[in-house]
């Protein structure tokens, strides 16, 4: 109670507002964690009556699920690499070159996010049938890459724009060829933006379910796809365990990259210039 006494009156209201917000925000997460580690938990008791790791054992003992985890991470890694290879040159071009319809092209990268996803995927699916990409690894990767084009172009493009012309010219002056200037000066200065975009790409690929469900079934079932069936077929505990596994990489990556995750790096990526 000493804490409340030390607070000025106005602050007490603030405190409660923050407390309510925290409950609202972290409550479901706490519930999820409790659920994942509970053995028996019956209504109306507030806490589980017994704790266990049974559901963790189940999840990690199930070959199909373990396989989906491995598959998800390898797909996300490959999607990120492919996306970097395709989008970084494009981002550089958008930042540095003036060409006709530049803004139209830049804007078109938004379109994949503007349509209802399922509608887009069905249209893509028809094409994939023709090219025999259904139920293939390449097909899944492609459908993921479509989703990440926007992040991977817009954010690095803003990062490249932040590299001043005089910084590049000073390097030319110092005796570096254009290629060396890009490698030693432009790329490192733009790196934070590229890292942020890569993390977004990795996470969005890890999270992607709709497109994978359509293109990858039955052989390529990633974590989010498997999760649908687990939620449908098993008690909530299994779903909770799985959610944690799915959330963990997000938290770890965001913590690791928080140095680069300034609001300006992200906001800068969404300017039409």
């Amino acid at each position: 109670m000493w804490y409340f006494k030390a607070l000025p009156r106005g602050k007490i209201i603030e405190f409660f507002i923050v407390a309510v917000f925290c409950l609202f925000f972290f409550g479901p997460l706490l519930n999820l964690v409790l659920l994942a580690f509970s053995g028996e938990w019956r209504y109306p008791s507030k806490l589980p009556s017994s704790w266990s790791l049974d559901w963790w054992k189940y999840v990690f003992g199930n070959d199909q699920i373990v396989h989906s985890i491995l598959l998800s991470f390898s797909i996300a890694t490959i999607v990120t690499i492919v996306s970097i290879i395709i989008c970084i040159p494009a981002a550089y071009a958008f930042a540095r070159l003036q060409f006709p319809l530049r803004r139209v092209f830049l804007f078109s990268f938004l379109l994949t996010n503007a349509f209802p996803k399922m509608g887009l995927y069905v249209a893509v699916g028809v094409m994939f049938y023709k090219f025999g990409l259904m139920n293939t690894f390449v097909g899944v990767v492609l459908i993921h890459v479509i989703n990440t084009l926007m992040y991977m172009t817009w954010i690095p493009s803003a990062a490249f724009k932040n590299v001043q012309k005089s910084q590049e010219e000073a390097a030319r002056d110092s005796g570096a060829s254009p290629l060396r200037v890009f490698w030693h000066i432009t790329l490192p200065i733009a790196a934070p933006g590229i890292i942020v975009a890569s993390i977004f790409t990795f996470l969005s690929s890890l999270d992607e379910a709709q497109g994978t469900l359509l293109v990858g079934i039955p052989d390529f079932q990633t974590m989010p796809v498997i999760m649908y069936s687990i939620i449908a077929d098993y008690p909530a505990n299994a779903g909770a365990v799985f959610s944690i596994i799915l959330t963990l990489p997000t938290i770890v990556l965001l913590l690791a990259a928080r140095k680069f995750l300034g609001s300006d790096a992200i906001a800068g990526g969404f300017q039409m210039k």
Partner: protein
Amino acid sequence: MHMQLEIKGLTNIYKTGEGIRNIHLQVKKGELLTLLGPSGCGKTTILRSVGGFVTPQEGQIIIDNEDISKYSPEKRPTAMVFQSYNLWPHMDIYNNLAFSMKLKKMKKEAINERVQWALKLVHLDGMEKKFPSELSGGQQQRIALARALLLDPQVLLLDEPFSALDAKLRHELREQLREIQAIQKLTMIFVTHDQEEALAISDRIAVMNKGKIEQLDAPKEIYNSPKTYFVANFIGKMNFIELQAQDGIVQLGNSSFEVADVGNSKVQTAIRLEDIEITDVDPDVNGIIKKIMMLGHYAEVTIQTEFGLLKTFIEKRKLETLSVEQHVGVCIKAARFYGNNELKSNIKRSSTHVKEFEAAY
């Protein structure tokens, strides 16, 4: 005379019509030449052409008897200091300075030694571990200068390097630049739009307007006898009065001036502020003091006359006898007359006239 840098017939016109037209320039070894002019006059285009960042449509650039016009920037014996964003934020100061030498695959000890030498030269020893963001604007520009010097340039190019700094710092850096130039015997081209800066540091100044050089002279000459109306307007403070000449005679109040080659045309009379004196004896023009502005050890006094407002500098100790709305006489010690943008006559009044005035005061 051996020329370090020669520019011959340099022409580069942009789509907007701005640019440079047929520029010829010669810079001696160890000389500091300033390109001075308003924005858009083409001064930066010349500088960037020499540095290799602009490909001019016509003309030659010759450094030390070698035509370098076709070389890319990394091959040219020039070094440039930009207005801002010179340094690479992801490298510490040491690596910023060492970049060019690392490209040349120099030995580590040699690089160390050179970096220490450069830091000492710009009075920033011990900064090598810091990052550019930890330095002040002035320090960053000094590092940029050090990095340019480490390139051992035949010609050092400076593109308004101090214009983003505050006035006091600008003065300091100016002096430092002059010191370093004297020690290193550098050949420099300095671009600025600040006429005071140009007068302070240059050996010669090229005053530019609309892509052409209006006057190329030593600072003293530029100030004392501006060859065109534009230069007179751009350099230092000036009073301008438009007068009608009659048979080569220009009448200004009680005095008449004989101006060469004007006939009966309109003439722009330019009078420096320090060439106007307040006097009671035999004044050229009469007027009323409208404004007195203190500027430190002197003051600027504005006088309403029949020819419009005239401004003059007055020493602080003479100020006490003057007040606003006071009726005063004005004597003109020197004037320049321009017809058709050209200097026609640069007239200094006889010293007796001035002596008379001194005695009367």
